[in-house]
């Protein structure tokens, strides 16, 4: 009796359909993501305990890479620069809010203005780096011209060990401010006009209005702006690579670039040591990732 034979298999699928279906949908993406993202994180951490040139034998050396890091001046310079990046990059959030408030009006053509202000974010960081590198050029860049206008000798921003990191960060802020601005513009669309009106009736104006009524309503935008800015600051690779390659004398290095330089460049193929630097960078990022996930978890609970 064929019908009784097919029924069990059919109902087996039917019984387990809801349990199995999500996995079938997940398999391709999860597989891909595990191979290229999840597994490499653990591999890198493992490699950081080895001495390895990328080709020959891996030699287990325990924590010696990390001990070397503790004595490595270039590592400390990079770490210090990463902190400067993190702090100064945060300026993108209030400046972005400022520009968003400035543009948050309804006049003819304002949509076009908003999009044009957003422009810098769409452009590759390689191009941003080239533009600013050229801007900073003391002999024919705009900075040189401005200095000459005031009768001063222009500084070579990218050639000066104390200025160089700030010069690169300024270049990075340009697109980042644009990003924060657009987040806030979207947020401002959702600010309730009733509350503003109520605030006005309570005589809240100017800064008080901004601080007590607008900013609390922009909280979701602020959250995302802070997250993407932190990530942008810690991912700062392209600009350093384009503008200075970490120079002069390693003074503008950041962990992301220093790692690349140690593991994959003319300075040698020290994959183990590079992985140790990457692990440190990962641990710093993990603080923010955990915070982000925690916040998301709280939202999920609601």
């Amino acid at each position, binding site marked *: 009796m064929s019908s009784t034979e097919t029924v069990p298999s059919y109902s087996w699928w039917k019984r387990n359909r*809801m349990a199995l279906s*999500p996995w079938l949908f997940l398999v391709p*993406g999860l597989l891909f993501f595990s191979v290229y993202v999840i597994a490499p994180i653990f591999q890198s951490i493992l490699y950081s305990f080895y001495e390895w040139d990328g080709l020959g034998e891996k030699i287990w050396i325990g924590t010696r890479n990390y001990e070397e890091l503790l004595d490595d001046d270039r590592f400390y310079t990079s770490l210090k620069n990463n902190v400067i990046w993190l702090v100064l990059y945060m300026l993108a959030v209030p400046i972005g809010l400022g520009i968003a408030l400035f543009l948050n009006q309804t006049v003819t053509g304002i949509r076009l203005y908003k999009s044009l202000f957003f*422009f810098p974010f769409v452009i590759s960081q390689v191009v941003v780096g080239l533009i600013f590198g050229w801007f900073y050029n003391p002999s024919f860049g705009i900075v040189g011209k401005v200095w000459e206008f005031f009768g001063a000798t222009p500084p070579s921003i990218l050639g000066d060990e104390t200025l160089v990191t700030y010069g690169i960060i300024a270049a990075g802020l340009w697109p980042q401010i644009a990003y924060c601005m657009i987040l806030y513009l979207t947020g401002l669309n959702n600010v309730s006009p009733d509350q503003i009106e109520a605030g006005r009736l309570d005589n809240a104006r100017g800064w008080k209005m901004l601080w007590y009524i607008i900013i609390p309503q922009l909280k979701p935008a602020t959250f995302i702006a802070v997250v993407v800015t932190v990530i942008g600051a810690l991912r700062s690779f392209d600009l350093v*690579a384009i503008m200075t390659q970490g120079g002069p004398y390693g003074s503008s290095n950041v962990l992301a670039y220093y790692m690349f330089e140690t593991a994959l460049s003319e300075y040698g193929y020290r994959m183990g040591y590079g992985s140790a630097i990457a692990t440190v960078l990962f641990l710093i990022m993990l603080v923010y990732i955990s915070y982000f996930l925690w916040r998301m978890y709280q939202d999920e609970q609601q």
Partner: protein
Amino acid sequence: MFPRPIQQASPGFRTGYQLFLPIALLIWLLPLLAIFMTSVRPGGDITAGNVFGWPSQWQILDNYAAVFQQSKAMTYLWNSVKITIPTVIIAVSLSCLTGYALSAYRFRWAVPLFFLFVAGNFVPFQILMVPVRDFSVRTGLYDTITGLVLFHAAFQTGFCTLFMRNFMKALPFELIESARIEGVSEIKIFWHIVLPLVRPAIAALAVLIFTFIWNDYFWAVVLINGDDLLPVTAGVRSLNGQFVNQWHLVSAASLLAALPPVLMFFAMQKHFIAGLTLGASKG
């Protein structure tokens, strides 16, 4: 300071605001403007010190043609297309599936797996660099466009899943429920009910991923060795070495590299911005 609507301001203030807008924009985009002006002037202008003034001659065609003739700019641009388009298709398709799995089913692993994708999306590239490069070398994918595409697609699946899942979570769940009660198969629900509803999300992700991948520099350097397969970002970098002190050509090449994402942004602005808010707000 929260500004009042400009309509309530005095006429003088309103005119002032409208006059100040273009000035502010000009200052904000000064770097771009300068590089555009440089890209259309003869090289002699720069050596003569005319960097920000009016070009002594408009050489739009000459300069841009020179970039294509004297360099592999065309190859670089084409490589970028060959890297970007397949990545967008793979990453968006995969995330439609994962997003559906993580939003339409209530199972124990839904939230942990979702968080895994989110966390992976935020890791620094450097923690992946050595193993991914090693993996690519061993599988013969190193120095191939396929290898670069596969990595990009896998990595972007994290961000796309975050976005898709949040978008699908906001859909009316009753639709899926009632289809299930009617006995519609899961794959049909996905294909005929959910996919048409997430079209805006697909558009948002497509433009966003297009921009991310087009602008990628790091992975191109790590996974591509030769000159022939470089995307335009890395290509412009090497042009910079080739055109030493020929800033008008470097500028023209940079603008060419920047153009596709800019056009993309203008064509799909609304979707682009929806994507940038990480799917958190649908404003």
